[in-house]
């Protein structure tokens, strides 16, 4: 009970730090969103626009010190002129901020609330990322185990070289090459744009699958390399460890040695990767979604970055941060299930 409490306390402190860093980072950026709001190539303005600018700044507290802005951002009290009476507001909008589940609205599209928007984008990105993670694990675990068991064989050498290649190939380059190769300019096998073709009805899974192939490949190949390398190392280490030798000496059947002794134990370090793979994939989605024009969170984050939508970028950073924390927690749990030493509190 105490560890649970401590753990959640630690997690919330980490979360707070994460939010603080994201917030400060984005507020220190040059280019004031108020300016952006009133920018347009055929904008013509005079005193009225300057007034509007001042008003916009005060509405969004952009003219206040950073810590006030942070408290306003954190919530649950709204500190703006229309905010909670406790802080001198008019009281028409007392609650707001992260703690009230409110990520704010976009500056440029004030009718767009960021929280549902991010969730909607996430509903595109997450399935892609999860599928990629699944694919990565499904391929990498057996590959790593096989490499580890048959170390120094020709298969090991070649597949290792191949995974090394995958590890080193920059994802945006691979994405461009795949687009050239499989797109209409090359073999014309796969669509390279978006997630749906124009004629496809909404329930056409085949079409969706065809569109998702290249992005998923781009997202997953680097993880395959990383996971399989980890798995190989773990398998190799355990395969040559004393207790496996002992098991073999006891006359345990080879199949049982491999499955019960080696694979099971080798899985432990691989599970620690679970927490890291997801954030990698989400990070990678920035590039993959940009190149393939997929309206997911990565693209949203990049566009928001270019448009200086501070709050939207902060929301993306925080959401991915929370997902990472959850992933790390998940890998802890998995590890404790698989590793008797952790399970029994020995480590």
């Amino acid at each position: 009970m105490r560890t649970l409490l401590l753990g959640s306390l630690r997690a919330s402190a980490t979360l707070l730090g994460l939010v603080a860093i994201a917030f400060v980072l984005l507020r220190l950026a040059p280019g004031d969103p108020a300016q952006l709001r009133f920018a347009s190539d055929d904008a013509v303005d005079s005193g009225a626009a300057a007034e509007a600018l001042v008003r916009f700044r005060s509405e969004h507290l952009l003219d206040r010190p950073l810590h006030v802005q942070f408290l306003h951002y954190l919530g649950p009290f709204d500190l703006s002129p229309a905010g909670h009476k406790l802080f001198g507001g008019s009281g028409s909008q007392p609650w707001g901020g992260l703690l009230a589940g409110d990520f704010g609205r976009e500056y440029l599209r004030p009718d767009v609330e960021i929280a549902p928007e991010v969730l909607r984008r996430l509903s595109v990105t997450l399935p892609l990322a999860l599928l990629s993670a699944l694919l990565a694990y499904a391929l990498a675990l057996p590959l790593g185990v096989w490499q580890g068991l048959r170390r120094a064989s020709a298969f090991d050498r070649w597949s290792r070289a191949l995974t090394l290649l995958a590890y080193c190939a920059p994802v945006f380059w691979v994405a461009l090459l795949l687009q050239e190769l499989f797109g209409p300019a090359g073999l014309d096998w796969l669509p390279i744009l978006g997630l749906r073709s124009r004629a496809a009805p909404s329930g056409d899974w085949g079409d969706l699958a065809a569109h998702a192939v290249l992005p998923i490949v781009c997202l997953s190949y680097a993880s395959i390399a990383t996971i399989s390398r980890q798995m190989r190392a773990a398998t190799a280490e355990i395969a040559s460890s004393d207790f496996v030798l002992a098991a073999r000496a006891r006359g345990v059947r080879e199949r049982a040695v491999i499955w019960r002794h080696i694979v099971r134990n080798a899985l432990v370090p691989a599970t620690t990767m679970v927490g890291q793979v997801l954030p990698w994939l989400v990070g990678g989605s920035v590039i993959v979604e940009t190149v393939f024009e997929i309206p997911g969170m990565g693209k949203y984050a990049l566009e928001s970055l270019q448009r200086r939508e501070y709050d939207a970028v902060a929301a993306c950073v925080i959401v991915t941060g929370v997902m990472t924390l959850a992933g790390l927690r998940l890998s802890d749990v998995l590890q404790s299930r698989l590793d008797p030493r952790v399970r029994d509190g020995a480590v």
Partner: protein
Amino acid sequence: MALPWASSCSPSEPATESSPPRTSGNAALDATAPDRFRPDFDPRRDALPAPRRGGKVVIHVETLPRQLNYLLDNSGVTRRILQELHGTLLERDLFTGVHRPLLADSWVVEDTLVLRDERRLYGELVEQGERWLVVPRSTPSHELSAAVEVPKADVARIERGTVYTFRLRSGIHWHDGAPLRPEDFLLTWRLARIPQVRCDEKRFEFEHIVHAEKLDERSLRFFYDRQYFGAAAVFGALTPLPTHIYDLRAPQHPNARPEATDEELARYVNEHPANRNWIGVGPYRLVEFSDEYVEAERVDMGWPSQDAGWFDSIRWRLITDDALAYRALCAGEIDFTTRLLSDDFFRASSDPEFTSRAYVGHFYTPRASYIGWNLRRAQLADARVRTALALATDWDGLVQSFYRGLAQRVTAEWFDGGLDYDRELEPLPFDVQRARALLAEAGWYDRDGDGFVDRDGKPLSIEILTQAGSRAGEVFLQRYQETLAQAGVRLDIGAVAWPVLIERVREREFDGVYKVWVVPIQSDPAQRWHSREVGTGSANETSFSAPDVDRLIEVSASELDDARRGAMCRELQRRLYAEQAYNYGVKVPHRFGASLRLRNVRVGPVDPGFRVREWYFVD
């Protein structure tokens, strides 16, 4: 009104040195002919197939609109989409720019006569010897005033073309079924006057409408406070907003709160969900606004058949990367794009993937690239220096290579096909030697042996801002850096994010800025060049100020005669070109690619250059 530019924008215009060589073939075609770029079609000989309803057309957009309320988002893409989803009182002809009725089916323009005691009389003014005769011409039931005669001695001044009375087309409905009413137009005007409504880009347009009134269920009237050549355009572009949705205080609103303050109303409008889920009066109704596209379907809202649209639905599809748009056109994912890259444009005709599905063409709308110089900077205050900087610009090289000949030099930022543009004015050549000589004349030459010119111990070093990721800007500035160096001037390229660029220009913290002017076909130079616009934040970003230019601008603004106004504007143009406060660049055509399934595609100079509602599929 005459058709001042109808002849001059046809492709038979004499080719300047930088313009591409043209083959014969379709060159002699009338620019207004439909499908004139189609390889398999000659409008002089062949007949268009009969229009047919049906089908879904997909049109490429490079960015999605923030929202679709035209008052709150005045971007080009919003205008393009709203053209089909919505309507204006009048519409400009695609080729001539002449107004024709759209939501209004007729209108009357009258004048104002201001008496010495500031009383105003409205009606058509007829001069009769020593008297002015004021004759009301509006519908009889809505007379402005009785016909009166006024002695000239009592008249302070007359303002022509200041009272506009519109009669609305009958039977037009909002997409939710409510009828279109005059209040809807008045609402736009009223909202624009509330400072909290986020329409700062549009507000200035309504500045001079002093009064607006509803006459009956079909007619309404606006009063402009001065004689102004652009008044018709202001009223013509006026767009209604649904009162029953936006006007919290109107009785038509389901949750009407007559006591709501301006601020509450503004907030209500700014954040209204209908800004995205737009309810308009156009022949197409919005059905989906996703992260990938905006889709609309045809509805019968009382439009006459030529405006009712032929497609069952239109989808504006977001593709950020223009190179991918070409691929999408090849793959049949989109039917129309205006953003082909130069290389794609020229290779299209030999690419069987492309020619089996689509064809290419081009058209110009008024837009011109330029570098605006900050005249507050000491080193740029001298017109000789600015001229030298212009002489050291290899615009022709850029036209030849980057645009592959599909661009033309301009000498003013406004539309070059009208009477107000002097086509005889020669752009400055690319001449580094002359640039160096001019710089030396202005006291800038190399004194310290580093190759760069200097004065008062400081080298001539400028920074030009451009939007990061703007390919044309980045390519141009990298070339400019090289040619300026040859003239002994050091250039730093400031590729910054758009908001940063805007902020620095607004605060006048820049030396030069590379931008593109997108102006209406009839443009008022006052905002850019009048000295009253000098000051942080205004559109006169160069801080240009000259009394004679001010006078020219003022006089031409109130001149209603096109020929006389044109002459004044041409003089203004020559004057401004000699000043070189802008280093005028090129006008770039829209390079479009269209599916072979599309018929009746016409492209012209009036924004956005095409009318989707005219097109149809034939398969």
